C-alpha cells in the first residue's frame, strides 16, 4: 500500500468468556479504501469490527488517525469511527430523520430538534446519499427492511467520520438494495473515507471492495485484492467450497459453487 495508513492494528486479540475469539490481527488500511471483511460464521468478523471501534476490551494496539484508540475519549472515538451494528435495531418507533440525526451525537448535537446548521446539513447530505429523504418523517417501525437499512446507513454516513465500520449492512436485503448499500459505501470510500464492511456475500465483496480481508478462526489468513485474497486455495481452506470465477465489466466475479 502506498498511501499512508489511517487505521492500523498490531497484534490485536480479543478474549471473550475465556475463549480467544480474535488472535494476533495486524492490519494497515489507508483512507479512501474499501475493505471487505469475510470469513465463515464465528470467525471473529464482528469481534474485529467491535475491537476496532473500541466496543470490546482487546489487547494489542489499535491506532486511528495517528492516535492510540485507547487514549481517545469516547466522543472522539465516535467521531473517528462510525459503527453500523448488525440488525439495525431501533427500540422505539422514532421518525427516520431523528435516527439519522443521532449520527451527529458524537459532534455534540445530542438533540435532533436543536441541530446547528452544520449538523442539519450533514444530516441532509447523508439522507440524500442513502436516499431516505422521502420518508424522513415516517417512523422506522413503519418502514420496510430495505428502507430501514438505508436509514441505518444514513445515520452512519451522517457522522462524517474518517472511518466507517459496517457489520453486514446488506444482510436480508434484496439484490437491488444490496447493490444500493454497497454503492453508497463505495461512494463514501471514493470521497476519502476508510470503509470496512463485514459481509457473507463474496460476490459483493469482490465486486465493490479494493481489498478483501479473510478471517478464519480468529486469525487473519489472507488479505489483498479480491481475486488474490479469495484464491482457489483460500476458498477451499477457509470456506470449504469451490467457486466459479470470472471477470465481468473488468471486475472480479466470484460465485461460491459447491462444497468440497
Amino acid at each position, binding site marked *: 500500500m502506498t498511501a499512508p495508513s489511517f487505521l492500523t492494528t498490531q497484534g490485536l486479540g480479543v478474549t471473550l468468556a475465556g475463549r480467544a475469539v480474535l488472535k494476533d490481527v495486524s492490519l494497515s488500511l489507508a483512507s479512501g479504501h474499501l475493505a471487505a471483511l469475510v470469513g465463515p460464521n464465528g470467525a471473529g468478523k464482528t469481534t474485529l469490527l*467491535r475491537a476496532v*471501534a473500541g*466496543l470490546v476490551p482487546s489487547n494489542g494496539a489499535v491506532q486511528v488517525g495517528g492516535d492510540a484508540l485507547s487514549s481517545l475519549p*469516547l*466522543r472522539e*472515538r*465516535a*467521531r473517528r*469511527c*462510525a*459503527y453500523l*451494528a448488525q440488525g439495525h*435495531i*431501533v*427500540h*422505539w*418507533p*422514532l*421518525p427516520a*430523520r*431523528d*435516527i439519522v440525526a*443521532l*449520527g451527529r*451525537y*458524537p459532534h455534540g448535537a*445530542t*438533540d*435532533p*430538534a436543536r*441541530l446547528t*446548521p452544520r449538523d*442539519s*446539513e450533514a*444530516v*441532509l447530505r447523508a*439522507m*440524500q446519499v442513502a436516499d431516505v*429523504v422521502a420518508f*424522513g*418523517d415516517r*417512523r422506522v417501525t413503519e418502514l420496510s427492511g430495505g428502507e430501514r437499512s438505508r436509514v441505518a446507513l444514513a*445515520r452512519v454516513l451522517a457522522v462524517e467520520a474518517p472511518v466507517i465500520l459496517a457489520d453486514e449492512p446488506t444482510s436480508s436485503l434484496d439484490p437491488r438494495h444490496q447493490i444500493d448499500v454497497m454503492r453508497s459505501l463505495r461512494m463514501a470510500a471514493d470521497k476519502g473515507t476508510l470503509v470496512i464492511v463485514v459481509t457473507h456475500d463474496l460476490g459483493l465483496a469482490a465486486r465493490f471492495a479494493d481489498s478483501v480481508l479473510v478471517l478464519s478462526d480468529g486469525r487473519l489468513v489472507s488479505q489483498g485484492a479480491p481475486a488474490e485474497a479469495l484464491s482457489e486455495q483460500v476458498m477451499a481452506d477457509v470456506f470449504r467450497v469451490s467457486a466459479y470465477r470470472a471477470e465481468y465489466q473488468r471486475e472480479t466475479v466470484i460465485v461460491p459453487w459447491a462444497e468440497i
Partner: protein
Amino acid sequence: MTAQNVMATADVTAGRRAGVIGALVVLVALLALVSLGIGPVRLSPLTVIDALFGGGSDVQQVITREIRLPRTILGCAIGAILGLSGAALQGLLRNPLASPSLFGAPQSATFGAVLVIALGLADVRSYALPVAAIAAAFVSVFVLLAIAGRNAGLLILILAGLAISSLAGAATALVMNLSNNPFVVLEIAFWLLGSLEDRSFRHVVLALPFIVAGAIILFNQRNAFRALSLGEETAQSLGVNVDRLRLLVIAGVALGVGGAVAVSGTIGFIGLVAPHLMRPLIGHDPARLLVPSALTGAALLLAADIAVRIIPSTSDIKVGVLTSIIGVPFFLYLIMRERRALAGGVA
C-alpha cells in the same frame, strides 16, 4: 430540498409538544389549587390563592399554608419523581414495562426505612430515614440490573423485579414480625400503605432535596436515552458511556424514590402509567417523554390524593392503596398488549 424543509416538520411536532407541556402545567396548577381547598374545611380556589399570599382569615391561612401546602407540595414532587423515574427506567432499558415499583425499588426503600425505625436508630423525622430508604433502593435497582445484564428481555426484568419486591416485602414482614413494640408496628403499617396525610414542612425538607437531586440526575441523561434507542452497542459507538449511564440512572432513581418513600411510604404504579399516557401525545422519543411524564405523575398523584379525600368511606383510604388499585389493572392491560414480546421472551 433544503435542510430547512427537512427540519420543518420537526418544528410542528415541537410546537405540539410545547402545547401538551403547557396544558399539563395548567392541569397540575389547577389540581394543586383543588388539593389545597379540599379537606374537612372546603375552601374555594380564590380563597386558597388569597390565603397563600397572606390574605383571608388566620384560620384560612393556617389551613392552606401549614396544613395543606406541605401535602400538596409533596404530592406534586413525589408524583413528578415517580413519573420521571418510570420514564427514565423505560428509556434506559428500552422497555415499556420498566418502572420503579415493578422493580421493587419502593418496596426495598420501605424495608430500609422500616429497619431503621425498628432498630430504634432514628425517629420518623430524621434524615437517617431517607438515607436508609435511598441506600436500600439503590441496592435493589443495582441488583436488578446486574441480574438482568445487558440487553435483557422483558421477561427477565419482570421476573427479577418480582423476586426483589417479594424479598423486600418478606424482609419488611420479618421486621414487623420480630418487633414486639406495637408502636413500631403501627409506624411500619404507615409505610406499607403509602399516604400524604398530615405531612408538615419538616417532611418536605426531609424529602425534597433528594427528590430534586434525583430529578436533576435523571433529566440530565435524557439525550443518552435517545441514543440508547439504537441499542447499547450503537449508543456506545456514538460516544455514550453506557456503564456510567446505568449507574447514574440507578442513583437518580434511588435518590428520588428513596426520598419519596421516606415521607410517603409506598406509592406504586405512577411511574409505569405516566409515560404510557404521554406516548400517544408526545411520541416515543425517550428524551422527550421525561418532562411530560413527570408532570403527568404529579397530576396523577395530586388527583389520587384529592380522590381519597372526596370518596366517602368510614375510615381514610390511603393514596398508595388507590394508585395500586388503579395501577395494577393498567399493568395487566400492558401485559396483554405486550403479550407477544413476553411470550417470545425478548423485548
